[in-house]
């Protein structure tokens, strides 16, 4: 019963904090008693970038690891002196110090497009991994995400993008 009372006080505090500051007295009282957890937040720092890929006569896959290292099923497809910009997607997760959180990466592959041409991006991996989840040591952690792109046989040249499909969700455990 005592537990329940504390929970309700916490409710009170959060509710007023979100709605308005009109009930000034109530807010102040509540804040002394309740722990308001810092909300978890994620911001995107860098996009996922596969760099320059040479279209070959056969299909190939190019993978960018969460560390930003690129590899290909056919090394000929990766020019070494003009690799272009190669980056894993990078996010900053912030929230309650030392809280652990879970990570949700896209469940299905999505397309990047250049005009009418498409390529598929899938097999998402992250550091920290989805399996282990993250820890907000010092209230923050960098989360990086890699993936694999499938380049078709004689894929037409062009800049392929998708600006709103690589969706990452983090949640307190």
């Amino acid at each position, binding site marked *: 019963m005592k537990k329940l009372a504390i929970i*309700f006080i*916490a*409710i*009170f505090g*959060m*509710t007023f904090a*979100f709605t308005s500051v009109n009930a000034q007295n109530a807010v102040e009282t509540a804040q002394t008693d309740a722990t308001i*957890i810092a*909300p*978890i*937040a*994620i*911001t*995107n720092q*860098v*996009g*996922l*970038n*596969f*760099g*320059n*890929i*040479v*279209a*070959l*006569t056969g299909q190939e896959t*190019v993978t960018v690891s969460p560390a930003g290292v690129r590899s290909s099923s056919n090394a*000929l497809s990766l*020019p070494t*002196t*003009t690799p*272009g910009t190669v980056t894993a*997607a990078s*996010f900053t*997760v912030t929230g309650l110090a030392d809280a652990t959180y879970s990570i949700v990466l896209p469940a299905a592959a999505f397309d*990047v497009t*250049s005009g009418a041409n498409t*390529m598929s*991006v899938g097999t998402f991996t992250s550091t920290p991994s989805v399996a282990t989840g993250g820890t907000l040591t010092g209230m923050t952690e960098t989360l990086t*995400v890699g*993936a694999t*792109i499938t*380049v078709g046989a*004689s894929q*037409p*040249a*062009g*800049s*392929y*993008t*998708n*600006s*709103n*499909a*690589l*969706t*990452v*969700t*983090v*949640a307190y455990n």
Partner: protein
Amino acid sequence: MFRKLSILLLFLMLFATNTRAQSTITAQAFAEIIEALTANETDQLNFGRFSTDVNGGDIVINPDGSRTIEGSVIGVPGPSSPGKFQITGAPEASFTLQLPEGPSVLVHDGSSKTMFVENWVSDPPVENGPSVLTNGTKVISIGATLSVGSYDENPVGIYSGTFQLTFAYN
């Protein structure tokens, strides 16, 4: 009255945790596909016409098209040319050229007599490092040295063979 209030607050709390205990963001994905390199032979490597003599000699075709003859071979006027290849690919990309590592064998039309082509050189020179596809294209010129034997070794006729160049994005 108290009970009602409790229910209302509980509802609000659930709402609050749902929106704040997780956060979602979307990032951009990007890739640049660049054209594969293609090479077209616009001119065949041609050592031109010449007469052999008792001792044989060398015919050198330079990448700039000039021909020099060494030994007892006598040059005969007529067309000769370095091999010319037009390389196309991604604009401003750099690529490397690999010349044949060994000699190419030219075989006489009417017999199994042979001549060797070696000492491959190019313009731009391989030792200068990768070349750049200015506006997506670059012409590479290939020269080499043909070793001609004596009249007996290399009877009159047409000799032909192939050689392999490798171009790759760098």
